[in-house]
């Protein structure tokens, strides 16, 4: 079977009006996106936004309901096995085989990709080194920590030397050290030219790893761009956070703002515990607030982040 090579200009993943329904429930509702070779592409969104369903369609394990989808220029419905042969997948749940050892988990996966035992062993050894699990090769999977299991799943997804790696929430549930180790390994893969396609609901992860991302909410794509572009487009440069003292009557002083923040910034958001003021100059806004007689318990000026974009786009009641 001749290898289908995608010209550098043609996208690795191409989706138009891509839709997935489970019965009457629409998980993915007509989304368009392209992922270019060598790119790190992210789906950012809250739980239930349709990220995993999209990833499963790309991974050819979930049939497309309607719309257009090609992976490596191939149709998943026709060439599922050929696509999967060139794909690495890190699913949300670890799905490791508890009856096999760490090394054997990789070996048998190599066999699933039709590698010889010898080749499978060579790659497995190398990959265990790559994810720093060489010492645990003979151990069972069960006693491994969450971070180790995650690294093992990543190693497993690389056994066929994939040119496209799909990662569904690669660091959910990991402690900070473990997350950074995973990020480091993914960054190295990217340097080697592996295309990354990942989902996350962590903003820092999206900022760390993604060249470009789409924000998904309620089965649709609601924004697209690089992390910087999204911040520039949807939020201001800085955010002023004001916290007020809680009174005995369970209201806090912010209930008595009496419109004193009006006109202070282009957008103001009142949360249960604090007030966010979106502005180009946080210090100046804080000074103005003082001048207008507000006495918050604490004041914080920070650079705006992807989190602000995310919350702006996926909803939270706004002060108008």
């Amino acid at each position, binding site marked *: 079977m001749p290898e289908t090579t995608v010209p550098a200009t043609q996208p690795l993943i191409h989706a138009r009006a891509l839709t997935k329904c*489970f019965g009457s429930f629409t998980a993915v509702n007509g989304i368009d996106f392209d992922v270019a070779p060598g790119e790190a592409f992210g789906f950012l969104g809250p739980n239930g936004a349709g990220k995993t369903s999209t990833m499963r369609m790309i*991974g050819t*394990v*979930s*049939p497309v309901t309607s719309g257009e989808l090609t992976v490596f220029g191939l149709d998943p419905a026709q060439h*599922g*096995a*050929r696509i*999967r*042969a060139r*794909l690495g*997948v890190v*699913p949300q*749940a670890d*799905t*490791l*085989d*508890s*009856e*096999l050892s760490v090394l*054997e988990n990789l*070996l*048998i*996966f190599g*066999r*699933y*990709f*039709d590698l010889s035992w010898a080749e499978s062993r060579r790659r497995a050894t190398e990959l265990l080194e790559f994810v720093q699990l060489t010492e645990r090769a003979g151990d069972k999977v069960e006693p491994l920590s969450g971070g180790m299991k995650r690294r093992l799943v990543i190693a*497993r*997804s690389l056994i*066929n030397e994939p040119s496209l790696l799909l990662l569904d929430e690669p660091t959910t549930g990991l402690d900070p050290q473990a997350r950074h180790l995973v990020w480091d390994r993914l960054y190295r893969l990217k340097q080697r030219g592996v295309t990354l396609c990942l989902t996350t609901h962590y903003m820092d992860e999206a900022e760390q790893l993604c060249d470009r991302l789409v924000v998904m909410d309620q089965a649709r794509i609601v924004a697209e761009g690089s992390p910087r572009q999204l911040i520039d487009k949807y939020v201001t440069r800085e955010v002023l956070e004001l916290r007020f003292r809680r009174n005995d009557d369970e209201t806090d002083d912010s209930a008595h703002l009496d419109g004193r923040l009006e006109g202070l910034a282009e957008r103001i958001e009142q949360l249960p515990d604090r007030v966010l003021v979106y502005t180009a100059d946080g210090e100046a806004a804080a000074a103005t607030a003082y001048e207008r007689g507000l006495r918050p318990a604490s004041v914080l000026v920070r650079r705006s982040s992807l989190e602000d974009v995310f919350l702006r786009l996926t909803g939270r009641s706004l002060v108008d």
Partner: protein
Amino acid sequence: MTVIGLRLARPGAIASRRSLRVLEHDLLVFRRGWYSYVLSGMSQPFLYLVAMGIGLGLYVNRNGSLPGGVPYLDYIAPALLVTQAMMAAAFESAWPIMGKIHWDKTYHAALNTPLGALDLLAGDLMWVAFRATLLSVLFLAVIVVLGAAASPLVVFAVPIAVLTALAFAAPIMAFTATQTGDGGFNALFRFGITPLFLFSGTFFPIEKLPLWLQPLAWITPLYHGVAAARSLSIGQVDPVGLSIHVAALAAVALVGLWAARITFRRRLVV
């Protein structure tokens, strides 16, 4: 649905090269704990054979009430050969498959490789056949050592046992793929497997059952497996009867396979 049915008829559609990889996986697991499989698989039929065949046999043989005056040991030995294959197949198709589908989700991991849902089904059915073959051959050796087989045709009881194993494994795997917990297995074993073990002509001729129960025994696959293996073992083969038994087992296995292809797809390809 009809497409699946039609494909079934195409030779080679059942066992693709890829499904062999799934079998390899199961053998890798087996290599780690083969002694435990053999020990737990062999001990039960062996103990039943000695206790019932030799111990209880003293009292049964006294009356010579079995058809043809067959010694009780010879009577139950081929039946136990087949029932142990059924037991192993039923077990393997229940909890371990549930683990792969639902608890550990290792099937889902495998589906991210070029393997497809039907490769998983075919591979694990081959594993059941492997396990049934291995244990049947070992048990056959026990039977021969104890002198419990009158005819050399008893060697053909092994393929009968393997076919019986598949006749149980395929429908039970089909059932497992529809479950989300192991609650149903309790009922399956208590009201399915155990009664079959006890009433399918294993320990006494089904003619001793109440008249209204006999047709029920007839439609169970274990009865056909036991009857076929017994006729071979005691060397009283009736070609027509044997063909009917084999055909019945094959029919159940194929219907089970057909059902399992549907339920596996439904469960794993969503």
